[in-house]
């Protein structure tokens, strides 16, 4: 077991899966010789050559549609959108084809591809580089939508995504790329797609989040324990779609109070679905309104103000306290 950053952990997953399965192909802008603008694909081209690690022309729909063709033919493309903010250029390919080829061909063809996209704010990036719009993909039948939160689960989820017979949109929280390290076993490890995890047990309040927002969420949980003596149960969704509502609806039955956290804009965001499921499945147990600590419904500001936009441990704590006091 080595202590790896998320970038290294994802890189490990790619190395190992490419070694294991020669149909796995990596493609995108700058993923080859440059090793990716975040170095996620570093070293792959040296090891697997240009045929399996392909620097493509600058065209997101192209990369995606080309990958769909490869996947139909039998390869397992792992393609990259350099930033999730440019992934919308490929939306029609994902919606109309990747997500539907299985249904459209009566099962003859399917699209075992992964679309990796670094997402989210917090790295002082340029305009269009800080978005968090997982809801677009999660709302698209036929796509799976995964967001890891730590090096270890990033690696394990990516392995599952590559092996999944259906298309998986894989959002990588770029602010967590190098923010911390975690022990990641050298040997194979997978986490099933469609499974959430209780990362902290508690009786008083349920906090639900995923991706980069797990860190302020966990921080808030700790402070709440220290300062208020409140036991938070914290759930990491990991898969946004198909969402695993089993753990959070159970947790809510226990705690009766829920706060959820995401950096995506609030309205029509992922949190709304969580609330809907809680109402559908834990209605009688809810003792307070469910609070959403999220990005605001505005154009995300340039980086000087992005920390005013992004949920923080303070904002989470405030919402938690209000929910507890309700």
């Amino acid at each position, binding site marked *: 077991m080595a202590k790896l950053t998320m970038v290294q952990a994802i890189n490990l997953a790619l190395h190992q899966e490419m070694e294991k399965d020669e149909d796995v192909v990596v493609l995108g802008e700058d993923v080859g010789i440059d090793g990716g603008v975040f170095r996620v694909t570093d070293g792959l081209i040296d090891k697997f050559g240009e045929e399996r690690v392909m620097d493509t022309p600058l065209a997101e729909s192209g990369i995606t*549609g080309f990958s769909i063709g490869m996947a139909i033919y039998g390869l397992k493309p792992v393609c990259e959108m350099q930033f999730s903010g440019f992934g919308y250029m490929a939306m029609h390919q994902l919606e109309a084809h990747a997500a539907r080829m299985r249904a459209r*061909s009566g099962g003859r063809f399917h699209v075992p591809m992964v679309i990796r996209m670094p997402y989210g704010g917090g790295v002082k990036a340029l305009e269009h580089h800080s978005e968090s719009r997982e809801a677009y993909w999660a709302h698209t039948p036929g796509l799976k939508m995964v967001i890891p939160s730590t090096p270890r689960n990033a690696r394990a989820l990516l392995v599952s995504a590559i092996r999944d017979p259906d298309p998986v949109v894989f959002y990588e929280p770029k602010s967590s790329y190098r923010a911390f390290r975690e022990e990641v076993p050298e040997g194979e490890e997978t986490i099933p797609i469609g499974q959430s995890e209780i990362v902290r047990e508690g009786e008083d309040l349920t906090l639900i989040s995923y991706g980069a927002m797990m860190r302020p969420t966990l921080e808030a949980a700790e402070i709440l324990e220290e300062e208020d003596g409140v036991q938070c149960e914290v759930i990491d969704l990991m898969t946004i779609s198909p969402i695993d509502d089993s753990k959070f609806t159970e947790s809510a039955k226990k705690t009766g109070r829920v706060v959820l956290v995401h950096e995506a804009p609030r309205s029509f965001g992922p949190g709304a679905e969580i609330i809907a499921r809680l109402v559908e499945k834990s209605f009688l147990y809810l003792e307070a309104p469910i609070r959403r600590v999220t990005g605001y419904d505005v154009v995300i500001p340039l980086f000087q103000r992005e920390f005013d936009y992004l949920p923080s441990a303070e904002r989470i704590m405030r919402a938690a306290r209000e929910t507890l006091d309700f």
Partner: protein
Amino acid sequence: MPREKIDLEQDIEYLSILNEKGEIDEDLEPDMKDDLLLDLHRAMLFGRRFDERMLNLQRGGKMGTFAPIKGQEAAQLGAVACLEDKDWLVPSFRETAAEIWRGKRPKNILLAYAGFSEGGVIPKGINNLPAAIPVGTQTLHAAGIGYGIKFKGKKQVVMTFFGDGATSEGDFHEALNFAGVFNTPTIFVCQNNHWAISINRSRQSKSKTLAQKAIAYGIPGIQVDGNDVLAVYAAAKEAVERARNGEGPTFIECVTYRMSVHTTADDPKRYRSDEEVEKWEKRDPISRFQKYLKRKDLLSDEEIKEIESEIKDEIKKIVKGWEKKKKELEGRVEMFEGTFAELPAYLVEQKEEFESELPEKPEKPEDAKKQEAAEEDEEEAAEEAGEEGDDEDEKAEAEEEPEADEESEE
């Protein structure tokens, strides 16, 4: 420090072999076996008649919207005739005849246009993608499949079809560029039928030809008379050979004409003149080809009549088989299965919710069930014995089923 013309090292040519009067340029006549010529003729005729029948069914309210091929039989069949079974076809939505040539079952085409997803099933061993409705998007899949072929070192090629309108889409651009950069064995066949619904080719792009768009990607481009099946075949053959030899993609513009409506939902009188249509009727690809075959003594008027009558019977059987299948499928609702390989929990829940909401059907008594089963068996037996058209289809599917993709190449 000059101002000088750059040598682009590529020309765009125009190719025409058989003209409207049935005259031929013998120097250019492609080397085609008699059987192939006759098969092509039959397929073109079948395509035309099947199209007519579909229009009929649609007008009679038995089918949904579809896009007729009338007038474009040469453009699509001349091109796919160059493919081998192991090759791949990536169609748009107006290649009914090409899809059938490549093994798609006419009954399934009818089923799909009648709104049954079951019609979309593509049997193993048939390397056709489903028809693509979002204009231009499929061209990228053909580029990607081409890369797959190259990657696996197979001697296959992939051919994709699209219209003049599709050349305006960004995906077309990205597909040709990717194919060029990765030198994929992809043949891009544009059926320039002069219209994208109501938009004339002249308003789709200011470029003199569509073929010249190949220059933007540094790949070979050629414009052919798309109502001349020999020219289409010759150009496609060259392109297929280049692709198979690892020499990369080609863009072929077939200049043809959509003699019918855009789709059954369209009224072309709003945007084009009868004279224009009449002008193009004179350039009909089928009559022209028949003249040629007759001159070659490969076909007589008598034989044409016979073929027409065979086709009529065949289509009758197909329609009958389709009607039967529709009846079978009625009431069957399987919408939850196709989305993922495995149903995730929330879809299991939704399926249960859905099923719990279905109007409850009274259980049939055991006797009635047995009776039905017996009738079905009988029908199937009858089909196998007599109804050739449809029966062939069934057999074909049965044969194909066990073959793996990999094996299909041989």
